[in-house]
């Protein structure tokens, strides 16, 4: 079957999709967006967390056909997503960060062209905080954690530790013991708070 969706602001179309395929498979193997990770395929690890019409979900448990016509945000689009959000929040004050033509900006091309390594695009606050706090080791859980944490901070800019733990309780990490991940989310919240 054919599936159409908007991912990270760009329209995509996938053909010859087997009906049993998940959104995760389509993203990774058909749309060239392997950032979302496949670690369990049963909704027990959160590594494939994406935003589906704004809601964090395990992409491995969304049938490809269910994503038809939906808006998906993956880790690859997180920086843009955060930038647009902060643009919206600060829109009245500082209009028009020159987004047009910027690599990775939605709408500039209909053909997906992943940012090449070496091109330095600004990171979302939560991405930068994960690097700075040492929350990344093997990094396999990182994309899912980032999408989840970013959504938490969108909903709750000043979460308590218990709130962070609850929000991230569906994202397994095997390397870090989570301490530095907590640090990272606290750091991202603090930085975002300062910036506002």
């Amino acid at each position: 079957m054919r599936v159409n969706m908007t991912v990270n602001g760009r329209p995509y179309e996938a053909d010859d999709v087997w009906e049993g395929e998940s959104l995760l498979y389509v993203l990774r193997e058909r749309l060239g967006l392997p950032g979302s990770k496949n670690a369990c395929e049963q909704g027990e690890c959160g590594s494939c967390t994406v935003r589906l019409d704004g809601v964090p979900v395990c992409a491995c448990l969304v049938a490809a056909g269910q994503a038809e016509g939906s808006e998906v945000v993956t880790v690859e689009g997180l920086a843009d997503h955060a930038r647009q959000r902060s643009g919206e929040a600060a829109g009245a004050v500082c209009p028009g960060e020159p987004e047009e033509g910027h690599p990775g900006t939605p709408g500039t091309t209909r053909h997906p062209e992943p940012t090449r390594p070496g091109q330095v695009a600004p990171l979302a606050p939560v991405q930068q905080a994960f690097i700075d706090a040492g929350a990344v080791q093997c990094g396999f859980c990182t994309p899912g954690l980032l999408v989840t944490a970013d959504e938490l901070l969108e909903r709750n800019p000043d979460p308590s530790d218990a709130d962070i733990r609850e929000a991230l309780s569906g994202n397994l990490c095997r390397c870090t013991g989570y301490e530095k991940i907590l640090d990272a989310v606290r750091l991202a919240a603090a930085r975002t708070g300062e910036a506002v």
Partner: protein
Amino acid sequence: MDFLRPAGWEEALAAKAEHPTAVPIAGGTDVMVEINFDHRRPEYLLDLTRVAELAEWEATDRTVRLGAGVPYTRIIEELRTELPGLALAAHTVGSPQIRNRGTVGGNLGAASPAGDAHPALLAAGAEVEVASVRGTRRIPVEEFFTGVKRHVLEPDELIRAVHIRRADGPQQFSKVGTRNAMVIAVCAFAVALHPRTRTVRTGIGSAAPTPVRAREAEEFLGAALDEGGFWDSGAPLDPSVVRRFVELCAGACRPIDDVRGTAAYRRHAVGVMARRTLGWTWEAYREGEGRTAQCA
């Protein structure tokens, strides 16, 4: 495999009538796991996420009609007052991501003895509204399950909604898992006080081939509360009454040993949860929750 995408409820029923082997999929939190792990290769997948009416709930005086496709997260956020037991149970389901997708309709359709919603539905009192092109029927939730992962639905039927009694008193839900989050129930227990009818109802999960009520325990406690005038007095419960209630709840279990826990532990844990949740609900009742309405 074919993927059916009905845009509305009538269309969904027609599709199910035409393809009775079609497997309904909503949040995908059960069905997709089976497909990903090659446990299941249905001929048709029937996607219900486009059927808008399934994702709605409406409350009347006495009941909430909960669309089969309302995700757990919305139950937690929107129905905490009307359905406190179910909201507590919903909060123990999987992870935030799973709660964003998973639905009570899906939980019923999977009919796992470990389904988190089931004990809460049993305790609150609920009827499952199922429909087909032939018509609609309502099945009391205690009659819905027929065995491990089996239920009474006919091949052409779909779950439309669950009619759940609005809470008229305190409700509680507890679940034992071997992890502090994202865990399948080793066993679970729900209790609901119904001051309006002066009854107590319970639900037990993962301790028998199907979710069950501890009916003897309910009847015993109901009688003891009535006879002792507890509903009116709000007096502390007699320890011997609690003890007997706990015994009867544990006795209602027909658990097995499996990789998640032993039968003996399950029986024991159901007893502990029965005592604690009864304590919490009765304490809340004594402090006024549900009593004001009762006295008025």
